[in-house]
């Protein structure tokens, strides 16, 4: 299980670094901090998801992590001032119970963890992956030099 996570993340890291070198940007210090946040979220999310799925009830851990993953960027986006239209909101609100239903699998085998541990693992996994998405979303397209010249006041625009 851990070997699988390490192999996947190692390859992803090598490829992403390659892509970053191929498309050389001009990242500002804040971009690096967001990237660091995304990395911590991704690694932490993986650890807690695997821990939760490995020892706990999949039917609790998986949907909690899925809904958390959706909620964090949603809240961050809205707090940052994003205002999606009514139809988009309908889709977003429908998506939350939908992903809960899809991710809820019946529990097979015996669980070696308590309900509280499952809850913690699921919530922390969701928080981690959600933080990954939210942090990635903060990295703007325009290079840092361009941004310092024409600051719109919104770091995400």
């Amino acid at each position, binding site marked *: 299980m851990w070997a699988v996570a390490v192999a996947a993340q190692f*390859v992803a890291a090598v490829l992403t670094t390659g892509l970053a070198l191929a498309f050389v940007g001009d990242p500002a210090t804040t971009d690096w901090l967001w990237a660091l946040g995304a990395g911590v979220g991704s690694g932490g999310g993986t650890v807690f998801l695997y821990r939760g799925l490995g020892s706990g009830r999949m039917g609790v851990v998986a949907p909690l992590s899925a809904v958390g993953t959706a909620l964090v960027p949603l809240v961050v986006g809205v707090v940052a001032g994003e205002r999606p239209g009514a139809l988009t909101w309908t889709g977003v609100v429908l998506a939350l119970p*939908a992903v809960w239903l899809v*991710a809820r699998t019946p529990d097979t085998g015996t669980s070696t963890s308590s309900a509280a541990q499952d809850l913690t693992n699921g919530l922390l996994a969701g928080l981690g992956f959600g933080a990954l998405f939210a942090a990635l979303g903060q990295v703007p397209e325009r290079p840092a030099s361009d941004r310092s010249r024409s600051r719109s006041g919104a770091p995400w625009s």
Partner: protein
Amino acid sequence: MTIGVATALGVAWLPRDRAAFTAAWAGVLSAAATLMFLLATQSGLLTVAGVLSALYPAVTVALAAVVLREAIHRHQAVGLALIGVAVACVAAG
């Protein structure tokens, strides 16, 4: 980070068997997903890109049904249908 936690927990993390190396393909897809997500949030809303990306378990369940011939439970089918409606709303909105 994963290596750090695995070492702290005292579990083996070095990929040795075939299954672990097959997971390298998951890394390729993961890197592609990161790139797509960056492109999505640079041209669209984080609220939309984040929520749509978080629907990834739907793909897992659909693939399990199609490739592994696993049974989809009724509540999962309801969830998949709801996700279809949700994505259609977001795409139209």
